[in-house]
């Protein structure tokens, strides 16, 4: 036996079990005392205790004291979800010297006390779960976290407003930034906008069209920042390496460039919906245009004077119909999602038309007006006051008849059918992920959602999309400029924080290979979504062996199932560990009947 007071005593052995009554939240449904009495008979258990709140300061002190005075080396806990308070309890014990991997917690609160009113049944279930935890804890192996150095450079993919903002923020903290843009200019789609909500100013200063510029040109900012290396006409070809040090191959006009980066911001942006996919809207007709095309006409109208001119004959249009939700909220021909910005920009454009020609008849056909932004309601009321007609109802089709355009719609408020003779039809097209973003998502192993936009690990909080990879702006769903910039700043701040630390740790819940059992068949390599496995030739024996890149491995265990000889498995999620837990639960559950 080890000496008292020695924190790192080697003689530690055995299991401690602690049950939490959660200030009666668990206690009123689960007889923790009865379970403890029963488990005391288990020869593996050297200490057992019941506490009213293991996660409280007192609870933590109690556990620490237990660890100091008893000689167990592993712990099984029956309490709440290990995902939340479990971490607190685990950290408290780790502080005292417990290897945090020798810890198993089962959930007898959310998955037991709170859902099973019958005390006898809840107690019996809790007991079997705790037995399972003991069985699993017995088979756990001590591990160390993986140390990951983080390289102090970043790659920003996409040179739109989001990418530029992120690049500027990271560069201002002194880190090298590679700003990748596949077209030949910075600014992205925002560059082409002349009036944006809510100020009615241009999206980004372009120094060409707009005379009322208030922004310092962001693209100039980027170009003047020494830490930012702008790579135009360039695309990401390949990405290797892992968390903290990823190796990117970039195709540039000057040839392939290879760079190593610590963090990545994905700002691949969005594109507009192609209205040709809805033929009944007659997008081929010169006087049926998208909102972005209208934007250009408005700019030209302001620059050259003479107001808005329609494409077919250059005459000023008298009747203009805006059709909302083109490609949005439409499962059959477009996308299910709402594109969030179209109501706002359509009202803005309609007001601009009215400003240029107050006598024009402007209609906006909408399903719902959605603009959950500060200032939107005022914006909308102003538009109504200016005489813009808001028609609730979806446009059925645009009909071409003898050189004229008719918008056939229904006004669901007054229940009338409309057939509006229209000089110009503007399609408020929605947003979709930009071309090529799927490829980039795949390369970086970012999940995409049903709508094909990139998906957060946790939809509740802005977070990493993969370790050290952040997605900002419209790459993760439709949003306005302001919100894209907020994203960019948040992502940049997270990346900077990580790079400032220069290193991090993450749990070694990753795959490992038992070389004695590996056949080198490569099925694990094939099934790994993260390219964390490589089959290599053992230089000594010439045999093929599977090799894990721990930094790339996400610990999912796909390889373990693929392996026919079970040579590869995820640390502490080994087949025997899982089976031990299941068997113990089944046995206990069986003994009650």
């Amino acid at each position, binding site marked *: 036996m080890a000496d008292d007071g020695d924190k790192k005593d080697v003689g530690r052995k055995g299991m401690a079990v602690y049950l939490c009554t959660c200030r009666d939240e668990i206690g009123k449904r689960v007889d923790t005392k009865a379970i403890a009495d029963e488990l005391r008979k288990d020869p593996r258990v050297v200490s057992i205790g019941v506490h009213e709140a293991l996660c409280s300061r007192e609870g933590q002190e109690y556990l620490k004291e237990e660890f100091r005075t008893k000689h167990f080396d592993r712990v099984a806990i029956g309490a709440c*979800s290990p*995902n939340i308070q479990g971490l607190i309890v685990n950290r408290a014990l780790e502080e005292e010297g417990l290897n945090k991997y020798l810890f198993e917690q089962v*959930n007898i*609160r*959310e*998955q*037991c006390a*709170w*859902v*099973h009113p*019958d005390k006898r*049944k*809840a107690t*019996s*279930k809790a007991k*079997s779960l705790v037995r*399972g935890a003991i069985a699993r804890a017995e088979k756990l192996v001590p591990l160390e976290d993986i140390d990951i150095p983080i390289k102090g450079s970043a790659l920003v993919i996409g040179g739109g407003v989001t990418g530029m903002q992120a690049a500027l923020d990271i560069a201002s903290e002194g880190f090298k930034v590679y700003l990748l843009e596949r077209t030949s200019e910075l600014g992205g789609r925002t560059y082409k906008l002349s009036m944006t909500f809510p100020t009615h100013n241009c999206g980004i200063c372009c120094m060409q069209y707009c005379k009322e510029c208030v922004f310092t040109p962001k693209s100039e900012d980027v170009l003047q920042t020494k830490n930012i290396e702008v790579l135009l006409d360039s695309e990401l070809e390949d990405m290797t390496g892992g968390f903290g040090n990823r190796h990117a191959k970039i195709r540039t006009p000057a040839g392939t460039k290879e760079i190593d980066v610590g963090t990545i911001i994905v700002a691949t942006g969005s594109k507009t919906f192609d209205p040709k996919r809805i033929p009944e809207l007659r997008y081929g007709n010169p006087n049926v245009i998208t909102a972005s095309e209208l934007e250009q006409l408005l700019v030209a109208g302001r620059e050259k004077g003479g107001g808005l001119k329609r494409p077919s004959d250059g005459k000023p249009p008298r009747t203009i119909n805006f059709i909302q939700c083109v490609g949005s909220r439409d499962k059959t021909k477009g996308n299910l999602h709402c594109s969030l910005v179209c109501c706002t920009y359509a009202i803005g454009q309609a007001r601009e038309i009215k400003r240029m020609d107050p006598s024009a008849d402007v209609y906006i056909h909408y399903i719902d007006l959605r603009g959950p932004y500060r200032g939107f309601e005022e914006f909308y009321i102003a538009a109504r006051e200016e005489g813009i007609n808001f028609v609730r109802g979806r446009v059925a089709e645009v009909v071409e008849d003898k050189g004229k355009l008719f918008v056939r719609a229904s006004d669901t408020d007054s229940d009338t059918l409309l057939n509006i003779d229209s000089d110009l039809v503007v399609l408020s097209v929605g947003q979709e992920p930009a071309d090529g973003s799927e490829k980039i998502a795949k390369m970086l192993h970012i*999940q995409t*959602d*049903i709508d094909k936009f990139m998906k957060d*690990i946790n939809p509740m909080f802005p977070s990493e999309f993969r370790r050290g990879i952040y997605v900002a702006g419209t790459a993760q769903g439709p949003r306005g400029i302001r919100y894209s910039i907020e994203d960019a700043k948040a992502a940049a701040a997270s990346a900077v924080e990580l790079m400032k630390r220069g290193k991090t740790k993450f749990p070694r819940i990753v795959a490992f290979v038992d070389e*004695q*059992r*590996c*056949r*080198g*068949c*490569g099925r694990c*390599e*094939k*099934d790994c*979504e993260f390219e964390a496995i490589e*089959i290599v*030739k053992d230089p000594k*024996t010439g*045999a*093929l*062996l599977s090799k894990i890149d721990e930094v790339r491995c996400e*610990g*999912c*265990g*796909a390889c*373990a*199932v693929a392996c*026919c*000889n*079970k*040579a590869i498995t995820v640390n502490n*999620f080994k*087949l025997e560990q*899982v*089976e031990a837990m*299941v*068997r113990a*639960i*089944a*046995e206990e*559950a*069986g003994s009650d*009947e």
Partner: protein
Amino acid sequence: MSETFEPKIITFACTWCGYPSANLAGVNKIEYPPNIRIVRVMCSGSVEPGAIIDAFENGVDGVMIIGCLMDNCHYVSGNKRAQERVDSLKKLMDIMGIDSKRLRTEWINASERSKFARTVKEFTDEVRALGPLPIPKKRKELKARTKEQTIAAVKQLIEDTGAFDCVECGKCTTVCPVAKADKEFAPRTIVLRAMEGIVDNIAKDRDIWTCTTCEQCNSMCPYKVDYSGFIRGMREEAAEFGAAPLCSQGGLIHATQRMMARGKLKQQRLGWVTKDLKIAEKGDVFYFVGCLPHMDAIFYDRPGLRLQSICESAVRIMNKAGIVPVVSNEEKCCGHDLNWTGDEEDFEKLMEHNLEVIKKSGAKKVVFTCPECYRTFKSDYQDLAGDLGFELVHIADFAKQLIDSGALKVEPSAKSSFTFSYHDSCRLGRHSGIYDSPRELAKAFSGSKFVEMENTKDKAVCCGVSAWANCNAIAKNIQIERVVEAKRIGADKLLMFCPKCQVHLNCAIQDKTPVDPSLVNVKIEDFTVALAKLLGLMPEGS
């Protein structure tokens, strides 16, 4: 039985969606039946089929896997893989007689608390309606053996297998296929250790499980020491201490066989019998199918491996010769693998059952396609049960007899055009002495060229694995070398009777190989199937 049966249900819930959805149901206090016990896993795609079957074997009545919504897996495609595996496992369960409704997958988003609760209730009701799974709960209790008892048992074993006669000439090691690939392995030293009474590590001794029991050593030993018998006995002793082989497929196959031995399950193993196949319930000839339907389900994902075509071919050949064999749904695994991994108790249960089934059919002759089944009946069953009262014949011999007697005619127009060789499986060759019939049958393949490999008949190199244990790099080396040998003499097809040889050799040349793929570019095929194809009874692509 108690008034109401309460099923035990294990749910494997993924860390990202399944587990949180249960937590959320808890936070919202949504009540659901307490039968379900959640085991957290990283991803639904990491749930081993072996772990699922193990749960059933250990008294669980239903298993549910909960993962992220499709197309929404945190690990890209884990749930899709889980679904594929579950689909094939359900096939296996149905064959075994475990209603596949007892296994369910559900894709539930972390936020879908009510769906979680609803699903749990639904599943619990469904499993409750199915009733308890008729599989005895407990695994074998370990007998508390003393060291002396083990020493005595090993001594007896040495005596029984003639290991005392070993003169340490080393001939066995020279021919041992494992020793060729693994320099630290030698059959002789295992015997030596046992003779010196070193049995302390019997539970940890990897060597006794590494041996493929191919009997190369037996056939070469000048003193006729029964090495494979010795190894089998040692495994039994090791099993007394809880030792088990490192099973491939996560122990799934052995668990299947144990459950067949113990459970009173209503099997559905005749799914492969199509309407045009003629089979009987009673008759003179009994066709013992073995584990082919099970293995077909287990190896669903291996290209070029449809093991059920073997039994289909066998019945078609017999039908062509005017024989309507008895094929029984009651038949169970012969027990070969359990016998060779130290599980004598379950092996004997299977034996008793199978003998009973065959006797009831009134058969005078039992035909085998699987060399392991054949050997098990011929040697092990007869050793334990004495004369079985019916004739045992392997399809190689049987088909030859049918051709010789004229009952089976190979049309002169039947032609094949490939160069092929024949791989003697250890259970058929060295264990049972059948070498000539396959070679006689090979002559029927007019138009094709038959070539013999260098190591052939009693010197044939084995497929590297027996009883699904220890399928490691050494085994793979042996397998690769065997196929290279066939390629070297120009064979583009390698025929064999043993389905396991087929699984192993096929596996070794798929995916990555340590040699250039052109050196192992050989089609591995079952002899019975090839014969049926020649007779026009099976389509060429099967």
